């Protein structure tokens, strides 16, 4: 379809205006608002003990959730792409649930299992373990929301490459582990990496599910996103902007990683 110049220009203007009003200008403005009172104030506000603790907790939770889900993702992706087993369609559908379910419902679901009146609440309380309003609850919520990313990135790659090379390696006498390490893993590495980046972004940014289970105890169960909300509610706008700018910066770095990896993948560097 060869659209004439006039049409092409007006479509371009409409598209860019929409993106500008919705995306570019607001995100640009948040950086402007953050730094309009100078860098020192921003630095001060993201290095308060509460902010540093929130940052550490966010990192900690991410470092627990992402490796576990990566391991799960690779194993599940191989089972989905290579295996034939009963219930595959059902499991395949269930994996998408964390994408579709509201984060608030996810938070509530954890409260109903691990909370004081939940299914395991009594047993956990007797054992002296607190999950809800504590760090384990935040970890569980984060694992829940970031569960599908690696599976969903790796499965199509496995299907695409087929199993010819794996068969060949096996024929030549390679063991299962060797085949995986030397053939499968190198082929899926960009898919895995992409999934990991998406998971990290989601773990750092999760708000709804975490806000239900955290209890928001300052210096204990506040993550970075909860800190933004808390500062905003306490009319500490500058503080909220500073923490937001930090999160937005992390998002931009994530985006850069995504773009670079996409290019690598498209260049067929597998």
């Amino acid at each position, binding site marked *: 379809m060869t659209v004439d110049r006039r049409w092409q220009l007006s479509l371009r203007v409409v598209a860019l205006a929409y993106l500008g009003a919705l995306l570019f200008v607001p995100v640009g403005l948040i950086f402007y608002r953050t730094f309009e009172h100078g860098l020192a104030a921003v630095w001060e506000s993201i290095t308060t003990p509460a902010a540093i603790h929130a940052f550490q907790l966010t990192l900690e939770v991410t470092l627990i959730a992402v490796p576990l889900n990566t391991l799960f993702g690779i194993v599940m992706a191989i089972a989905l792409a290579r295996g034939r087993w009963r219930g595959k369609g059902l499991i395949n559908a269930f994996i998408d649930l964390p994408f*579709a379910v509201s984060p608030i419902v996810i938070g509530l679901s954890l409260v109903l299992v691990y909370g004081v009146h939940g299914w395991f609440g009594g047993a956990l309380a007797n054992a002296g373990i607190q999950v809800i309003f504590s760090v384990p609850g935040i970890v569980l919520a984060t694992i829940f929301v970031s569960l599908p990313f690696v599976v969903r990135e790796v499965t199509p790659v496995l299907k695409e490459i087929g199993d010819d090379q794996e068969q060949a390696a096996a024929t030549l006498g390679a063991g299962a582990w060797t085949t995986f390490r030397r053939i499968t893993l190198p082929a899926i590495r960009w898919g895995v990496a992409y999934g990991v980046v998406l998971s990290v972004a989601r773990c750092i940014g999760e708000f709804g599910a975490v806000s*239900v289970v955290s209890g928001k105890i300052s210096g204990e169960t506040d993550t970075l996103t909860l800190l933004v909300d808390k500062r905003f509610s306490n009319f500490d706008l500058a503080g909220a902007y500073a923490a937001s700018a930090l999160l937005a910066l992390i998002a931009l770095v994530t985006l850069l990683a995504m773009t670079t990896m996409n290019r690598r993948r498209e260049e067929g560097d597998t």
Partner: protein
Amino acid sequence: MSATSLTGPRSAASGGSAPAGGAARRAAPAWRSTGALGLGVATLWLSVIVLLPLSAVVVHSLDGGLGAFWDAVTSRQALSALRFTVLVSLATALINVIGGTLIAWVLVRDRFPGKRFVNALIDLPFALPTIVAGLVLLTLYGQRSPVGIDIAFTQAAVLVALLFVTLPFVIRSVQPVLIELDTEMEEAALSLGARNATIFRRIVLPNLVPAILSGAALAFARAVGEFGSIVLISGNIPFKTQVSSVYVFNLIESDAPTSAAAVSTVLLLVSLAVLLAIRGLGRWGARHDR
């Protein structure tokens, strides 16, 4: 019938290289290496992390009996929140259908300086934490708006927040299809004297429909459950700007877990229905795929 038409052309396409007895072929080594044990552990993980908690929601929603469930779901505030959630999510999906397709078209077929930069930034709403998204929009469209547009605490604000977080879905699902699309058919139509509008309607659009619809369904599902970006900008006014997820959050905070579970169950059913619809669309798209 649908199953054969689904697998028919695909297996025929790959049949040339594959050995005749496809079913007799041994399982791939990568699969044998994890095998049943790996699958068992992975399934257990999925069950403990996702399925067990979600079933707790459904079970707890019936704690007070069916009557209490019904009362919680049909209370005036719950119904009003649910109605607004569904309507504003539908509006979000619809605007995404038009805006997303338009942006995808511009990003694929148009050429302008900075296109790669714009293309990379499309994913920002996925990477940006939702609470930051809410704050970002409140900064531009709130009381201290530098452009003089104050829509904070209105239904329009909720729509804008949802449009922000769902922006990439339609674009990212339409873009690859548009790239793959052969321009030969369009050129043929052009040479036969078809006008642009006709070419778009008769040739481009039919090829894009499955991708547009599945992107819109994803956007709808995301909009129905969205919380973080809405909570600051909506003002959470009952009967006006309160969406279901925020309503559930209030129920949890006011210690009414059974009612919260009941409304959540309805939201879960909506998510499940959308997931099923997307799978159906995927099959349909695959069948139309040549």
